[in-house]
């Protein structure tokens, strides 16, 4: 499903990624482990077209991401869900409106949007909060809304960058269970984290990164 061949990326003199080779299968749950500056975020950015690799090839379902025109990047992102550590919710829009955004930009019909948003909110357990504004929610609830927004258009791939970074251990556990549930429905999940607790709880394939290089790739991280 996702193939990276000799991917390298530098920001000025700083080498963020060096010669990355990686293959991720359909429906896989992959943890990208590594400390700060390991290159996890850069790798995720390459996957959703936020950055271009300096060298190498990145294929998603056989499509070369490096050769996408600026007009094609939004189309790629509509096939993905993205969850970030800082939630990135629109503070002056209700929970419902935030979750509906991917459908609105894709031009979905009103009835379709209502049905899918309700489904997504129900599956992450915040349907009763749909009329509230994000700042009135707890951190855990905000991350749930963010996940609902990421899965509302039934993406093939879900990318999550430190989704539990701002949460306490109890909420972390709840959020990880949500990712596992989404993965169980067939969505490929790539989750970047530095948290060993997450690795233990997920207990799937773990790819370890350090200074922009892949230094480990093993099944069942524990």
């Amino acid at each position: 499903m996702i193939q990276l061949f000799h991917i390298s990326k530098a920001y000025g003199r700083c080498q963020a990624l060096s010669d990355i080779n990686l293959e991720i299968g359909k429906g896989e749950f992959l943890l990208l482990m590594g400390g700060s500056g390991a290159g996890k975020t850069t790798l995720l950015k390459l996957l959703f077209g936020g950055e271009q690799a300096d060298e190498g090839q990145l294929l998603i379902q056989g499509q070369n991401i490096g050769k996408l025109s600026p007009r094609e990047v939004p189309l790629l992102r509509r096939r993905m869900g993205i969850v970030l550590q800082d939630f990135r919710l629109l503070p002056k829009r209700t929970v419902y409106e935030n979750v509906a955004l991917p459908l609105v930009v894709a031009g979905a019909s009103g009835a379709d949007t209502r049905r899918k948003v309700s489904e997504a909110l129900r599956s992450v357990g915040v349907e009763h909060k749909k009329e509230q504004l994000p700042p009135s929610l707890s951190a855990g609830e905000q991350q749930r809304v963010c996940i609902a927004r990421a899965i509302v258009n039934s993406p093939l791939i879900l990318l999550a960058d430190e989704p539990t970074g701002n949460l306490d251990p109890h909420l972390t556990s709840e959020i990880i269970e949500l990712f596992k549930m989404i993965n169980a429905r067939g969505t490929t999940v790539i989750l970047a984290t530095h948290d060993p607790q997450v690795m233990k709880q997920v207990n799937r394939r773990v790819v370890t990164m350090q200074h922009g290089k892949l230094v480990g790739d093993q099944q069942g991280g524990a």
Partner: protein
Amino acid sequence: MRRLGYLLREAWANIRLNRTTSLVAVVTTGFTLACLGVFLLIYLNVRGMAASLASEIKVIVYLQENLSEAQIADLRQQLEREQAVAALSFVSKDQALADFREQFPSDFELLEGLGENPLPASFAVTLAPRFRSPEFVRRWAEQFKALPGVAQVEYSQDWVENLTGLLRNLEGLALSVGLILSVASVTIIGSTIRLTLHARRDEVQILRLVGASGSFLRLPYLIEGAMLGGAGSLLALGILKGGFELFRLKLGTASQLLGAQPWLSYFPGHVKGVLIVAGVLLGAVGSFLSIMRMREAASL
């Protein structure tokens, strides 16, 4: 349709969320366009006044003494054949004397002292509107002066030339002022949109993440600029209407005595429409320029 609704709602939300900035932009644009409107109003009124006066301007073809009826009829025919002549009336020597007596009763004794009537017969010629340019009137007068039986051709040359010159200057002034103020409006609305973009950079990035295309991100800001420009031009029309009515009120009796009142008119419907469209376009252009300048920084 749903996306269009979303884009319009977004534009309106942008304005509501940045109420103060939007209000400042509308008011400033309103006053800027009102300044432009003042010149336009003056220009249109002077042009209307000039057109009305120009229709009053007559070219007088004075005839030589002792012309026979046949010679006069021949001259009349020649004048009537002219394409430039819209109306023609013959003033006999007796009629000229009667007119003089009526207009200058106190000076009439001077003419009586001369014995015989010294006033010549004449044709009063009204030229068709498209033949009233100073150059044409001068050429036409010279051409007819050379005809046998014609003693003199007179017209209010200075008046025609001054009026045309005044209109030309006003046109130039209105155009220059209009250009400067249009640039000012574009800059003001552009700055407002830039502030909005700065304030909403995070939001733009979020929309990018969920797959919004460039045009989807840019359109609300273009619509917002157009809305601000349109609101500014409506405000300008309101200011001008208020000012115009106040001016007419102040002018009051004096203008009625001078007969100026009928010339004074506010913008006709189509000019109002043009002003509103101009405001909308200026707003959209200002917005477009800001988006282009901010494109990289705001991920547009």
